[in-house]
């Protein structure tokens, strides 16, 4: 892959990013800002979208933003612009100062952090950055041709891109990070059914569009004839995308600020046996299947944090402010200031087991195989009851094998209860869905999963 340079956008060099930051710091000093922090973010992304067996949207964007936070006398505020000329940067600095002057001082506001040391991560793959619209069109064409041969309709995306971020401040902190990203997602429709497959990687060579299309095609065909199943509690095998989209809703509960605000499901539950003993969850930006910058919104280096140890919530993640309040050390998970949410683990890794989807199905007398979940929302924030629908392939399992497809069901399920009823797990993979950001999770076999209603298809 990688031919014509019709779309390649050269990102600025690290030296150029540092130059922008130094310019802002110089201008801010002239404007009388006692402390200044600068974020520079640059993105060059492309996305080819297809439906009804043809490309119908095809887009490219390239942009850079400069976000400036000044702090003075316990007051801080942020102004962001995408204009890089000195007059515009000066105007953004003045806007930040003006905003900050308008608020009452907060004695808890910490001085900006000084220089930090970062662990290197390499997630920039030249082949991904060089992908062209022609490359993507050819892969899409193959998926559409497969669909046509099978009398199906293909819809989906093939995206690729590169981004970089840098943060620096007037106390000498400077950090920079760049990565590439690629995704292929495909829905195969065989009236009245559909199924779906998706992959996400920094390295486009690890994405196999044709295999994903074939998988979705096979499952769509299997799902054409459905029967209606009564709602109730079923043993389910959740494919990794379904696990991700559910468990992903817990990420903010592990924020120290959420617990301090008493809006986390972990209020009064830290250190207790909340989940099954087979549940271990960590946050690890350095995991080989993870992506993202190794520093947070203030430029603090991200730490690897064990959040749940054998079913017991053990640790939270902390920004500098929430760490000071809790008399802990910051873990490098803070959002860019000022904000009211504090921090969150953005690189969850849920440890897996040695089973597989096939083994889970084979060990099930009567249950359901779930491809994907949809429109998940929180019903009860403390018991962590989530509602949502199955989508794109819900299959009945009887006596250890898939015997047919069933109509989609609505669930109302507590995640706390669910993670206490996990019977089997596959090895963890980098999962990608549509409800949560990408994480590393396994497939799971869960007993007594609660479905409350059935839909029409």
């Amino acid at each position, binding site marked *: 892959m990688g031919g014509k340079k019709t779309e390649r956008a050269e990102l600025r060099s690290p030296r150029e990013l540092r130059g922008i930051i130094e310019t802002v710091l110089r201008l801010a000093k002239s404007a009388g800002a006692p402390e200044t922090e600068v974020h520079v973010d640059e993105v060059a992304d492309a996305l080819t979208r297809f*439906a009804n067996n043809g*490309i119908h*949207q095809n887009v490219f964007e390239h*942009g850079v933003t400069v976000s400036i936070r000044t702090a003075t006398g316990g007051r801080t505020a942020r102004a*962001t612009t995408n204009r890089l000329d000195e007059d515009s940067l000066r105007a953004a600095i003045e806007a930040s100062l003006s905003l900050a002057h308008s608020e009452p001082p907060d004695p808890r506001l910490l001085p900006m952090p000084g220089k930090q040391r970062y662990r290197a991560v390499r997630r920039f793959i030249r082949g991904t950055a060089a992908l062209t*619209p022609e490359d993507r069109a050819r892969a899409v064409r193959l998926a*559409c041709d497969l669909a046509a041969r099978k009398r199906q309709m293909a819809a989906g995306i093939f995206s690729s891109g590169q981004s970089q971020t840098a943060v620096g401040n007037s106390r000498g902190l400077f950090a920079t990070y760049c990565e590439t990203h690629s995704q292929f997602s495909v*829905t195969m429709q065989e009236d009245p059914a559909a199924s779906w497959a998706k992959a996400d990687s920094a390295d486009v060579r690890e994405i196999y569009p044709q295999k994903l299309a074939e998988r979705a095609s096979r499952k769509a065909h299997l799902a054409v004839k459905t029967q209606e199943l009564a709602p109730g509690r079923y043993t389910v095998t959740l494919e990794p995308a379904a696990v991700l989209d559910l468990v992903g809703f817990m990420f903010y509960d592990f924020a120290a600020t959420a617990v301090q605000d008493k809006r986390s499901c972990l209020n009064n539950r830290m250190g207790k046996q909340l989940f099954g003993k087979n549940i271990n969850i960590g946050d690890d930006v350095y995991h080989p299947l993870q992506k993202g910058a190794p520093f947070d919104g203030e430029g603090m280096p991200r730490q690897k944090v064990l959040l749940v140890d054998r079913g017991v919530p053990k640790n939270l993640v902390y920004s500098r402010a929430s760490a000071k309040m809790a008399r802990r050390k910051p873990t490098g998970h803070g959002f860019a200031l*000022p904000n*009211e949410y504090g921090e969150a683990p953005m690189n969850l890794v849920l440890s897996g087991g040695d089973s597989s989807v096939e083994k889970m199905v084979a060990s099930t007398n009567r249950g359901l195989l779930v491809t994907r979940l949809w429109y998940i929302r929180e019903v009860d924030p403390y018991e962590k009851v989530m509602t949502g629908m199955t989508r794109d392939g819900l299959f009945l399992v009887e006596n250890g094998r898939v015997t047919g497809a069933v109509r989609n069901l609505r669930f109302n399920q507590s995640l706390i209860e669910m993670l206490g009823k996990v019977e089997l797990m596959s090895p963890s993979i980098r999962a990608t869905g549509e409800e949560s950001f990408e994480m590393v999770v396994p497939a799971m076999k869960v007993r007594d999963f609660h479905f409350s209603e059935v839909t029409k298809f």
Partner: protein
Amino acid sequence: MWDLCTNALDTAKLRGASYGDVRAMHLRQRDLTTKNGQVGTLAQSESIGIGVRVLANGAWGFASTDRLTREGVAACAAQAVSIAKASALAKRSNVVLAPEKSYVDSWQSPFRKDPFEIPLETQLALLLAADGEMRKVKGVTLTETSMQFRKIDSWLASSIGSQIHQRKVISGCGIGATSFQGGEIQKRSYPNSFGGQHALEGYELVDSLELLKHAPVIADEAAALHAAAQCPEKFGTVILAGNQLGLQIHESIGHPIELDRVLGQEANFAGTSFLTLDQFNKLKYASRIVNVVADARLDHGRGLGTFAYDDEGVPAQCTAIIKDGKFCGYLSSRETAHLIGLERSSGTMRTESWNRLPIIRMTNVSLLPGTWDYGDLIADTSDAILMDTNRSWSIDDRRYQFQFSTEIGWEIRGGKIVRMLKNPSYSGITTEFWNSCDAICKFDHWTLWGTPNCGKGQPMQTMGTGHGAAPARFRNVRIGTAFSKQ
């Protein structure tokens, strides 16, 4: 700005584009929040750039850039053409656009007070005062307030000769009180959840909301909910407050009428629709008293879906969606309209920003007012649950089966509101639900609610939509499933 737009169009034509439109946009935003008596977010942003959409070899291409020089926009236009030619490698058929006139116009949304001219100290003082009122209430453990203001300038030029400048000023404001007690989290928001009310208005919106008056009320309710009775699980009558009914309209009418969904263009992400083409002008969507329109005109109100022209240069229109209960209209674009035999786009192509492609979006999809006085409606109801302010919302990918829960419920017995209920929820099938509507309140109780966070498209775009609604009554609805212990 027009020179840059023209330059991009010229380049696109030179490179082989058969059609092109160029959107330059300048977006300015201010965000203020407080939490527990302290300022949370205090931020201002601006973004300016240009997006070029072209047809070449019968297929679409789009590119955007923030390099606002002649060279920058020319390169962007050339890139859009080359992407379109790549699209043609896997096109299914040539794109054909429904005819549309060209327009040269300039329009500004009306407002009385420019929110960017109101001193920040005034805005923060109001939020902190409302925050303080809520914190006075015993049992409240978290207080939050927010204001958001946006000013958006857009310049659209197209190869059919349109040159349209629009300026929109949008304001939003809301407050919330949360109470954690005895293993339960309860929350009340005003005037709506998820940031409150949002509209195509100036700071007069904030003035009209009377935050200080409502802050202690919702704080009291948040704390009181812990001791309230649990909403029962049963089939029964539901009265939806306007803010909840707005979201019900959004999810179970607004999305399924999007023609790109119906035609399968959103099958991979946002989903499709049960409103297949064979249902057009046939389906009994709702009871006879239900009339729904998609109306982007200023006459309808200053909603998040109000404009003069959509983002492909089609004038704002009012489209009947449901007339006397019968389904009769889709939201369409120039590309999709003719595919179902319509002569013209309904003018619903909208884009979040200069770096996003316009896609079919809701405008103001509103339930027209009925005839009932609110007091009479309550007095006429012997046994029901009044549900107010959304807490969770979910619907399947064809928009049949939904489940909503609200922050608070009120039991109605013998024509009177008798007690508070906690954890109310209801669920159903879209057409069954709308056919069970037997009373809608009149215009005096009608509000054009703003939904600021509607996500759709790949790459994802967030768009504001409007939904006019007055309280309405629905019979034989499934209640309480979300919190079922079964």
